[in-house]
Structure formats: C-alpha cells, structure tokens
C-alpha cells in the first residue's frame, strides 16, 4: 500500500469499459459479434489529438499499466516505472492508453466472460485470437477514443509483436514504433516452452477441458507449474544465480521434498500468486497468439517484404541476456527495416536480467527510451 502517491506516479486511476457491437472478423475465420474492451488512460489528450500513446501488453499483462486503483493497492500498475510524470512515457506530454486484449481475463471479453449466445462462460469456445486480431480491435478502440494517429505504439515481448503488427497493418496510424525485447516470430524452442505450458494446464484434473468455471474450480496446479516454467525462462542463469545462488531456506538440507532452496520457494510463490490473478484459458490463448505470430509468412518468409509498407519510425531494444527473445531476433527486425530504408535506431542493452529486463528500469535502457520519447514529444509540440 502506498502511504502517499509518489510524485512521479499517475496517481489513482480507474479502468473503463467500452462495448463494441460491430462484428470483428478474426483470423481463425470466426466472428466476434460483440465484445467489451477494458482500458485505462493516463495524461490528457491534446486538442489536436496528436499526443496519444498506445501501450500493448505482453502475455500476462493487462490494462493496468500505471498508477494505483486504490490506496490499498500493494503495487502500482505493471509498467509504472516507465509511465508517469518525468518518466520515459511522460504523462506531462502524452495521453497514454493501455487496454486488456481480447481473450484476456481482466475485463475485456475472454474465456471467463459470458458468451451472449449461451449465457454461460465462453470457456474453450472463445475463439483463438491472433496479434493481427488484437491490433484490429485496438484500432477500433482508437477510433472510439478519437485517436486517428498514435504518436507512438509501444510494447515489450508479445507487446512488441503487436507494435510491429500495427506498423504493418495501419502504417499511417502511428508515427513511432517502440519494439522492446520482441521477435518477428517464435523459435521452435519458444513454441516448445509454450507447449509444455499448455500441457501443464490441460492435464490438470481441474481443467475439465476448459469448462472449469462451471465446476467451480480452477486448474491451480497446472497454472502454477506453467508459471514456474515461464519464470525460469524469463530469467537468465546469471540472474537466478545472483538472486538465489544455492541458498537454503532453513540453512541446511533436510532430505525431503519440501521447499529447501530459496529458488524453489520463489518459484512456488510466483506460481501461487499467478493462480489468484490469471485465467488458464487466457494463458492458453496467449501462448497460441505467440506461436502463430509470423508476419513474414504471408511474404514467403521475407520479413523485409512484410515491412515494406511501414511508415513509422522505429526504436528497437534488446537485452544481452534475454534468451527467449534474444538480441539476434531483434536484429532480424532491424535488418528488415534497414533493407527498406526505414528510419530505425537499435539499442542492445547490457543486462543480466534475462527477458524480464524489459520491465526493469535499467539505466542505459531507460535513458535511451527516455531520449527517444523526448523526441516524440518534441514533434507533438511543434
């Protein structure tokens, strides 16, 4: 709980809901006849509406990117370090929008929400949505908010993929694209991790083929194991060693299967707290959106061709110890942009935190991010 709201916080914020009843055609061939999107906004939209920033969240993120919902909140939004007065995404200059993506579990239509046709939770019947579908739904939100063109669309990891897709699908609707710790598609190894996640979820006896809502249970074990696996891959070997080493909780080994090493304790805690805040069907959908993402596929695998029509200027950032979305993958994006003579800057940040680095205010990373966003702000004020 914050005793008082920090000066560089956006303060108390509320989630808002918009209902859309124009059908949305999805990549899977199905149609969402109507849906809700929940979102938050920080800062003020300028009169000429040119200072809007869209934040795209990653796998387990949501619309609550910054500030506090109440004075009882233990923690601020998931990207509070980056969003607020004087921060890289400076709310003194920008109007910031962050939404929960379709298929999510924080208020936007998803597996846990009610299927209007049956009156029951969607569960496994919620359509599988793609990054492309998300971007289309985000464009509708932009229309509803009166934002014709984003000053920048920004995201890390799966969020970065949405940014890339924005630049491809709506080249004139964003001036800048900030793509952090992302990749133009997943490697086989990444898909493999996602498959282990899915198996963990689906093999939980409480999963009931995704209809666990109707049984009044959640596949807690599956969620927990899935999150533990995720966490291991989001950190680097080095980061785990630095954080936990071989430290024991009780100071000595006990020749049993209870928690002994600190790292076990940490993983179990992460797993358990995830159960409370996340939905298994949403997790499944997010991993599928990740696996399917491949904008180059329509162009015979040629990413440069996929990015040919891009008009936004790019900042691409990667982290040296990120092995899930490695610098090599970011370089592919940079190379493809350079092939098309696009405007792009690229920073490869020295960091030991693994993939998680994109959420951590590492000085070099935030300095570049901030410097870039100052340029974006200066353009708005011209």
């Amino acid at each position: 709980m914050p005793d008082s709201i920090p000066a560089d916080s956006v303060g108390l914020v509320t989630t808002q809901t918009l209902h859309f009843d124009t059908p949305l055609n999805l990549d899977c061939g199905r149609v969402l006849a109507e849906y809700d999107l929940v979102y938050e906004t920080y800062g003020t939209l300028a009169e000429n509406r040119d200072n809007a920033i869209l934040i795209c969240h990653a796998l387990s993120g949501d619309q609550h990117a910054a500030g506090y919902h109440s004075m009882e909140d233990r923690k601020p939004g998931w990207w509070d370090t980056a969003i607020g007065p004087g921060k890289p995404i400076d709310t003194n200059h920008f109007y910031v929008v962050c939404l929960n993506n379709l298929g999510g579990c924080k208020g936007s239509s998803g597996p846990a929400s009610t299927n209007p046709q049956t009156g029951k939770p969607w569960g496994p019947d919620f359509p599988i949505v793609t990054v492309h579908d998300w971007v289309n739904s985000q464009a509708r939100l932009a229309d509803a908010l009166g934002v014709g063109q984003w000053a920048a669309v920004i995201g890390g990891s799966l969020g970065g993929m949405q940014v890339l897709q924005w630049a491809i699908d709506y080249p004139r609707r964003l001036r800048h694209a900030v793509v952090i710790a992302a990749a133009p598609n997943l490697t086989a190894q990444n898909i493999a991790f996602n498959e282990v996640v899915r198996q963990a979820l689906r093999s939980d006896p409480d999963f009931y083929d995704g209809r666990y809502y109707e049984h009044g249970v959640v596949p807690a074990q599956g969620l927990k194991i899935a999150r533990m696996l995720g966490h291991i891959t989001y950190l680097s070997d080095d980061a785990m060693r630095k954080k936990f080493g071989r430290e024991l909780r009780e100071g000595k080994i006990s020749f049993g299967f209870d928690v002994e090493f600190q790292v076990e304790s940490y993983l179990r805690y992460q797993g358990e707290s995830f159960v409370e805040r996340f939905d298994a069907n949403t997790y499944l959908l997010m991993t599928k959106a990740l696996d399917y993402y491949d904008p180059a596929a329509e162009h015979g695998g040629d990413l440069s061709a996929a990015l040919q029509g891009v008009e936004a200027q790019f900042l691409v950032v990667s982290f040296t110890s990120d092995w899930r979305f490695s610098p090599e993958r970011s370089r592919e994006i940079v190379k493809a942009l350079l092939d098309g003579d696009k405007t792009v800057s690229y920073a490869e940040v020295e960091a030991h935190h693994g993939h998680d680095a994109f959420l951590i205010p590492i000085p070099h990373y935030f300095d570049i991010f901030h410097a870039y966003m100052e340029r974006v702000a200066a353009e708005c004020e011209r």
Partner: protein
Amino acid sequence: MKGLRPDLEIISQWIEPGSRVLDLGCGNGALLEYLRHERDVDGYGLEINPENVIACVRRGISVIQSDLDAGLSDYFDDNSFDYVVMTQTLQAVHYPSWLLQEMLRVGRQGIVTFPNFGHWKSRLQIALGGHMPISRALPNEWYDTPNIHLCTLKDFEQLCHKLEIEILQRNVVDTAHRTNIGTRLMPNLLGEIALYRFQHN
C-alpha cells in the same frame, strides 16, 4: 552548427549532397547531424558505446548499437550506401583489412581518418626515447589503449594497393587539422592525422 571537429568538416566537403552515408563508430552523431543539415544527407550510424548511442538518439540520428568487429553483414546488404565513413576508428578495430573490404561491400566509396604513426614525433620517441609514442593524436599508454592497429600513411596505402583499393583523395593535417606546407611536402613525416577517400579499383 558550430564546433564540428575539423576533420569531420573536411570529410563533409567530400560528400556529395543528397547521398546516403553510413558512419562506422559514429560517436555522438555529430557528423551525421551536420551532414543531414548541411548536405541533405540521409544516413545511419553504428556505435558500440551506450552513452554515444543515447547521444545519437537525443539528436534524432538513426543509430544501430553494434560492434564493428562483428562486421556489417548482420545489417547491411551490398551497395546500400554512397559513402561508408569511419573516423579515428580504423586503428581500434580487430580486423582493419576485412573492415575496409566490408566498407566497400556495402558502400560505393569509403572514407577513413586515422592518426599517422609515421609522424616525426612518434618516430623520434621510438628511435631515440626507446618507448611507444604518446602524443596529442595518440594520448594513451601502450598497455591501456584502444589503438591496437596503428599504421603510417605508407602502411595504409600499401594495404589499399594489396586490396586493389584505389585512393581517390588524401588529406594530411596536423592535430589542429590544418594543412601546411610540411604536411603537403612530407605527409608521412609531418602529418598527424590522415584522411582518405577510396573505392574499389
């Protein structure tokens, strides 16, 4: 635009307006910014130092954080640029000969500047002092220097000959970046900094 390093000013005169330039080891982006304003040049910089990368972003220069020792093939196809520039960096890379060829792979012409190890003060310090030279152009001790591939004008020109590189223009100046009668008559002895523009034969 004030305070541009004089060697950069000389280089900018060599670059045709409206051309595409890649600046290897672009530092804080001063040359590219100058070229963009004064010569309508479009370009990218490569830079390894994080502080410099930030400085470039602040100036609005497109910069790619990258190690020159890894070459240019991660990013650039053949013949992508009119000029590939590398100032005061050739002597600090691991594979100068390979990098010169990389420059002419991705660019039509190359431009380099480097401190001339054949300057009389360097020669004197080795010949009479018996120690590695320290000067305004080469301020570091031998054990603590990024300059691992120092060469003289003669060395550089011999390498160009070997690589079938044609030298189009040469300018040799003192550390204040002035040309004088000495640097013109006996460049390898009296020039402290060498500037070259070159292309494939």
